[in-house]
């Protein structure tokens, strides 16, 4: 089980290294703060209760997630290869395959933590956002100010906890703040599950829109897939080309249906590209929530399978290349 312990140590170190970077903290804080402010910035429109807030929160998750994933993947590998840290680790009895895969696991950890924060915040803002209510004595638009206050408080408290830990114990501000934020968001969701908007006890979790979870999950899976791509590329080229190619693949994969899908029947090239490029549209399903709809488990399963197979192929390529290259 030495390999397992090595893998855990390497992955943990990678995740910690990324989480301690100031820019990682900035990305997490700005994305969650913007998400938290969405219900106050966006007003109801055309009777689509919560749709704009919800969609914007998902969009923030995806956009900031791409930055987090790209940054994490390139820091984990490119920088270490350039800086010589990788050669120091590989001179120890650590296999290259393990090193590469453990690095990937660390990146997935960072993306997972970010996505968890973002997903929880999305759940909360969907609850806060204005809705048209016709039950009880209330008719009209209402916002859940109580949860809103808790959410903003969680953000402030996370920073306070990070600052205190740094002040008293000299602990790194970045990683502690992110951990505290995650804990705070979980507490907010639990409180949200227990109480109604008016502050009274409510049946557990009745007021939460759990339909959002599969949508967040699919975005997370897409981000993991993106990290796999970035990691595989990092074995060959440096930070900047990796980010450039990732952006190109992202944009082309997003328009894959339009660019290649419609020509796939007639052109061999279009068919090949359509099959090779990851199709991000599979992972962007928030429109399915309109008018009370939801994403089926079968769909999530199929999309995950697609992503797993795809990521596995990319990682295999990465491993093979990484075995050959000089460090």
């Amino acid at each position, binding site marked *: 089980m030495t390999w397992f312990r090595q893998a855990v140590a390497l992955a943990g170190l990678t995740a910690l290294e990324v989480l301690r970077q100031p820019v990682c903290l900035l990305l997490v804080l700005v994305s969650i703060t913007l998400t938290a402010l969405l219900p106050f910035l966006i007003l109801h429109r055309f009777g689509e209760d919560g749709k704009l807030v919800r969609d914007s929160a998902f969009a923030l998750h995806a956009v900031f997630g791409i930055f987090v994933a790209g940054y994490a993947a390139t820091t984990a590998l490119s920088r270490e290869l350039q800086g010589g840290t990788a050669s120091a680790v590989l001179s120890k009895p650590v296999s290259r395959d393990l090193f590469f895969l453990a690095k990937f696991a660390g990146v997935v950890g960072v993306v997972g933590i970010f996505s968890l924060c973002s997903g929880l915040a999305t759940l909360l803002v969907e609850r806060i956002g204005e809705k048209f209510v016709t039950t009880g004595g209330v008719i009209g638009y209402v916002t859940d100010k109580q949860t809103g206050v808790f959410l903003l408080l969680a953000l402030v408290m996370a920073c306070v906890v990070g600052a205190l830990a740094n002040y008293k114990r*000299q602990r790194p501000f970045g990683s502690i703040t992110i951990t505290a934020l995650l804990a705070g968001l979980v507490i907010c969701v639990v409180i949200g599950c227990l109480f109604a908007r008016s502050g009274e006890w409510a049946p557990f979790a009745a007021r939460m829109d759990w339909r959002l979870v599969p949508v967040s999950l699919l975005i997370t899976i897409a981000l993991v897939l993106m990290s796999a791509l970035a990691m595989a590329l990092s074995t060959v080229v440096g930070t900047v080309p990796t980010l450039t190619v990732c952006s190109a693949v992202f944009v082309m994969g997003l328009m894959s249906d339009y660019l290649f899908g419609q020509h796939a029947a007639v052109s061999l090239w279009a068919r090949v590209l359509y099959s090779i490029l990851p199709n991000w549209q599979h992972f962007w399903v928030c429109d399915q929530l309109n008018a009370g709809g939801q994403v089926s488990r079968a769909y999530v399963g199929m999309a995950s399978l697609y992503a797993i197979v795809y990521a596995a192929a990319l990682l295999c390529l990465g491993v093979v290349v990484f075995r050959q290259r000089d460090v």
Partner: protein
Amino acid sequence: MEQPDNGTVLEVFQLTKVFRDFWRRPRVTAVDGLDLSVQRGEIIGLLGPNGSGKSTTIKMLLGLLHPSDGSIRILGGRPSDVAVRKRIGYLPEDSYLYRYLTPRETLLFYGRLFDLSASERRQRTAELIEMTGLGPAADRAVGEFSKGMARRLGLAQALLNAPDLLILDEPTSGLDPMGCRQVKELLQALAARGTTILLSSHLLADVEHVCDRVVIMYDGRPRAAGTLKSLLENQERMLVNVPTLDAAATRRLLDLLRKELGCEADVSRPSMNLEEFFVKVVREAKENGTPGAAGESKMATFLQA
């Protein structure tokens, strides 16, 4: 700006540097109450183990760090004065060079920063490249250099302005013994010309060979200071140096000393240290016509003035 009349190039009084954390609380006291005065033409060595505050002191002298307490007067001004920096040469502990420039381009670039005229820049660059033995690599990117070659280039850029005060942080680290010897000879020649040199090192042999005076630092404080002679000389014993005598003559000499002066004496042969031996071997090999990597240590003309 002229040097002060008394010939003091550098005067440091109660210099203290406290590194603080984000909350401005003191974390480490890197330098603690250092007093130092350096005269023109002196070679002074800052000695000490790792983390003793040598590099921090040097960075404060150069204005790269601000002292927490105490004062610095360098070449009659403050470290931040542009006119002062015009007369200083600095070699950092690691040669932080632009990786994609060649040695020639590197020196031309720093020459521009010293505001040298185009012809002066070209002339000095050529001479320094020759002097540091980088001629064969003059048009290769610095990124491909070994540590020793980068060090030579670092030294060349420090000499570009024919400085009055040369500050060297670990000047011989990464150099081969020939390079070390050349650097030391160069420093002695520069000092003879009137350049003041401050060097920090933890390689004692370096300091011993070239320095007039040393300050030994530990934990941010000066623990011993003075001329090498005064610090190292054994006042209790003497050494008499004579050509090799045969066994009988040696015995007679020892008997004479015992009888006449009533003191015990012993006899040994002075030995070369390894560096001297190495230099001798390589010089002999060179004289026999085998070309080597090290360059000639012919002093650049603009430094001879």
